[in-house]
């Protein structure tokens, strides 16, 4: 597997899905076990990646490069660098956790796990693809399974949420598609002179045609790409698909949605927009910082007003992704490294929160914050886990979220001082909505209505403990992840900001 590690990671889940297709649908345990195995293999490969990844170079590694569709110069071109590695690791980790977390699914088990594995493949593909066309294909491949996972296994308003998610993302994809075609037509392969989808060629400004060097064209292309990615992040005002989709999706799908899918937006900006249009990245950076600040505060205020736990967590994602944008806008080492670290950390922390919400929803069949109270007495272990996740979310030092937020602030403050001062208010409002929810759900006198709720069980702990350990370890010492990314990202700053 060493040679084609990325392909194995990407396609092993597809093999798993294919195997599941042949298992009789009543043998649910077998299906689940196969799914777990199919998700475990990429996780093992991810560990191998982590061990063997060369941290000293900014270039791409584990490259696989083949011709795919010759007439359009489309290639099967996979490879990873310091930007994609943390995302690949995160995907492998969360996917496996989510398969375990989905053990309670009982409706059309076969379809669920098959779709879930295809989704996983799509995610790996997006993070590994270096051919724009291939990237786009994977990007779209993820959409369908997600649509069905929400639309079939979701909550009461699942159809509305699923279609909203689908169309919204599709609208973004269209813009991306247009930009991609423009790049394809106006970038020449330095060797053959023909059109190319090869991202590395697109990064090199010397390969751009004269038309592509025009300022207005570049503005338009930047905006097209940005909106395409912004919908995924989601950037205000393109975010309203997110609370609906998160709330309606089954727990594990919410985890993937918030934990991995949102990062594709910011990943796309860093992977594609920044190096392809570095001048535009600078042109746009102030706006990006502003949008990030809006996300942080707007998301936090909206979260505060929610009465549904899951919706609150969903809006907290809007807020936390704002920090990522803020860090990206800074174009400083601390800012960008902090941003990518925040992508990773938000993935783990929000996963814990969604899993925790799932725990209580499975038992009480409601997520209404005000319906609870005093659960801390009734479910002490669960109380500990949820508090841990919530404190990680409010940026408590010692847990991973703090490190990335602090780095972002340190990176952006020298560049945009006023914006940072305002954005930093997020640490107050963030604490407010988190603690207020904690109080309403867990503190206060015991509510007799919930006397029969059992505490968290072993399977649920099995999904939470590994994430918790990761959150703690990276909070105490973040270098293992930063080491992976810093060379690449520092190089990216050089490319963009000179």
């Amino acid at each position: 597997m060493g040679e084609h590690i990325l392909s194995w990671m990407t396609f092993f889940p597809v093999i798993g899905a294919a195997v599941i297709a042949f298992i009789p649908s009543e043998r649910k345990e077998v299906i689940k076990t196969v799914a777990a195995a199919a998700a475990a293999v990429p996780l093992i490969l991810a560990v191998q990646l982590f061990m063997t990844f060369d941290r000293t170079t900014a270039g791409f590694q584990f490259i696989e490069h083949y011709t795919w569709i010759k007439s359009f110069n489309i290639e099967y071109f996979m490879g990873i660098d310091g930007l994609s590695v943390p995302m690949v690791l995160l995907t492998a980790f969360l996917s496996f956790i989510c398969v375990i977390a989905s053990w309670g699914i009982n409706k059309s088990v076969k379809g669920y796990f098959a779709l879930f594995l295809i989704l996983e493949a799509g995610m790996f593909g997006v993070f590994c693809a270096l051919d724009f066309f291939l990237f786009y294909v994977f990007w779209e491949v993820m959409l369908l399974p997600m649509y069905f996972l929400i639309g079939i296994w979701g909550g009461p308003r699942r159809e509305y949420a699923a279609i909203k998610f689908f169309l919204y993302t599709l609208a973004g994809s269209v813009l991306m598609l247009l930009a991609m075609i423009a790049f394809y037509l106006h970038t020449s392969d330095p060797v053959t002179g023909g059109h190319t989808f090869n991202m590395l060629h697109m990064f090199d400004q010397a390969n751009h045609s004269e038309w592509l060097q025009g300022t207005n064209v570049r503005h338009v292309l930047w905006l097209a790409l940005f909106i395409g990615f912004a919908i995924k992040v989601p950037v205000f005002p393109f975010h309203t698909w997110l609370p609906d989709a998160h709330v309606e999706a089954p727990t594990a799908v919410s985890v993937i949605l918030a934990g991995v899918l949102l990062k594709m937006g910011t990943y796309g900006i860093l992977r594609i927009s920044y190096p392809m249009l570095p001048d535009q990245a600078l042109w746009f950076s102030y706006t990006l910082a502003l949008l990030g600040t809006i996300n942080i505060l707007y998301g936090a205020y909206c979260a505060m007003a929610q009465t549904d736990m899951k919706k609150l967590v969903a809006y907290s994602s809007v807020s936390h992704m704002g920090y990522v944008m803020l860090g990206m806008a800074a174009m400083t080492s601390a800012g960008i490294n902090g941003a990518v670290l925040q992508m990773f950390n938000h993935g783990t922390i929000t996963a814990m929160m969604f899993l925790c919400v799932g725990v209580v929803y499975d038992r009480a069949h409601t997520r209404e914050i005000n319906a609870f109270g005093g659960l801390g007495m009734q479910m002490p272990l669960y109380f500990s886990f949820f508090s841990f996740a919530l404190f990680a979310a409010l940026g408590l030092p010692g847990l991973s979220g703090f490190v990335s937020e602090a780095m972002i602030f340190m990176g952006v403050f020298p560049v945009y001082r006023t914006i940072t001062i305002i954005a930093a208010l997020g640490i107050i409002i963030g604490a407010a909505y988190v603690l207020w929810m904690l109080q309403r759900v867990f503190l206060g006198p015991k509510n007799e209505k919930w006397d029969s709720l059992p505490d968290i069980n072993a399977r649920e702990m099995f999904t939470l403990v590994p994430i918790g350990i990761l959150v703690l370890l990276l909070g105490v010492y973040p270098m293992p992840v930063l080491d992976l990314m810093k060379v690449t990202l520092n190089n990216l700053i050089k490319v963009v900001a000179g």
Partner: protein
Amino acid sequence: MLSETGILYAALAILVLPLASYVITFFFGKMLPRKGDFVGVTFMGLAWYAAIRIFITFWKIGDPSYRMEKAFTWLDLGGFSLDAGILVDGMTSIMLMVVTTVSFLVHLYSTGYMKGDRRYERFFAFLGFFTFSMIGIVLANNLFFLYVFWELVGLASYLLIGFFFHKHSAANANKKAFLTNRVGDWGFWLGILTFFTATGTLNYFELFAHAHVGTIQGTLMTWAGIGLFMGCVGKSAQMPLHIWLPDAMEGPTPVSALIHAATMVAAGVYMVARLSPLFGANALLVVLYVGSITAFLAAMIALVKTDFKRVLAFSTLSQLGYMVMALGAGDPVNAMFHLTTHAMFKGLLFLTAGSVIHAVHSQEITDMGGLRKKMPITFITYMIGTLALAGVPGLSGFYSKDGILGSALAFGMTDGHYLPFILGIAAALLTPFYMMRLTFKAFFGKPADQERYDHAHESPWNMTMPLIILAVLSIFVSGFNTADKSWFSKFAAPYDVPAIAAEFHLEAAPADAHAADAHAADSHAVDSHGEPVVAADAHGAPAHGEAVADGHGDGHGDGHDVHHTAHIRAMIMSIIMVILGITGAWWVYHQKRVDTSKIQKRMSGMHTALEGQYFFDEFYAATVYRFTLWFAWLMAAFDRVVIDGIVNGTGYLTRIIAQVSGAIDKYIVDGAVNGVASVLQGAGEGFRRIQTGRVQTYLTYTAASVLVLILIYRVL
């Protein structure tokens, strides 16, 4: 005496032992005999021992400027890095002593006080976690890790205030404490960012050097200093962010003693004292006024409260105000001195309060009375604490408070700001009065509640022992002298900033042409704040201001005389105040020569204001809270109605357009196209049944636009 490595290891041990205690009791407490309380007590005992070793070492070294600093690179991005490190100097060793002493005694005390509690082991775990975090604050050698541990003590405080979280009051109080602190931390964090951005370092001493050579100066430094001070305002409960501390009394009483009296709330004072060279004169003026106003206003409230712990809580606010006032008057040494003595006698007072509450099962002094006969050890130790707090000569509080009042007066004499001193001396009159009121009501007179009185008994040895030790310390810790003459001067002295600056070989900041002049003027600036700095700012030579902060205690001619005179005058006045205060309280509450209810009636407005704690809470509830909730509601509504409305509206519009175009297709375009249209509509009908139906047209629309646009591009 320890070697340098010895100091390092001892310091690390002090840091790690409480953490280990936390981990062990948190995860395994339930399985251990006695629920593992002995782990906490033993480990804290060991930490105390290590702290004593360090203390003795520094006693022998006898040089306040000696420091041991070790650091490693914690985070490195190549070009951007953060260090983690430990700093031990005289001031650290005092703080280590204070924290480990009180923490150990509180651990011991809690084995009695918390006995039988459902979450007994949790309590010890949290105490361990708190001690770890507090030691972290004390040992940190840079602002980043100061902030890290600063937040962690906040968490510990949150957990312990909310220890009885099934009570609504406790659940409200801990949230309030955390959030109020976060407001302060917002400023603190921005202050840190400002210093970091300006100088590129977070290391304390390197920052001092930068401030000295003028890398950061003027208005920027003033604001950065105010930012840092906001952290202190939050953590040390200064007005207007003091509102959380009285409510924090919801926590178990040992917690109030350790966290909300002796150590954590003093962290803000420690921080400002530790970073004193970073505060320009303008920033210090803010500090001075905030501190003195808090000292006075909080003492006023303590006059009317009837809850034993709340009286002590407001007294703590007031005393913290004194410390902050000392910082503002440019006398961090006396601030630290008062911090030390206060930790002993206020820790003691809270523990005696716990002992009383434990005995009568009430916190209301109206339920007490005559307890001195029932609880002799508690009473005697309580009296020592009270008299020390009141500032009776011979007890530690007298010397430390006197030092502060002297500095405040000296500041007034040189700079014309007399108000802080007046507020301070007024608080010095109030302090003995409210404490003796408490004493006469709780321990003298007739039992207010006979049943409770009969039930009351002296506490067991594990509770009285800490009382006795703290009582002894409350008498002797000052060494019967003010800071600059007692043992304290071996440990704490103003930083010798020029020497520190020389260590780092920094070049003077180029923009600061006047810096050299300003520094030449150091000697003139000694002990004189405010006014010259305002002038300096105006002249664009702000380094002058920071020079002021540097130059303390150098003992130059004029300044010394003023100081000397001020201290003697302040001492005389404060002795008069103590006598007046105690006699007054005796007259009113023991002899009952004054009808307090009549005074209450006559000054009912005043009384209501004090009883209502000046209505800060009500004010915030009506403004900040309400606005925040309203704004959150508004944003959510905006999100639902406007933003989502646009999204859904677009969908709706698209559907209508598609229907119109479908109709056009159907009736105008020829049959072949018609066929296609009806297929699309058929599909649309299918989708419509799944849901609202407005969406499938989206698909049509987007697909069509994609095709069109591809075509356009192809043609191009």
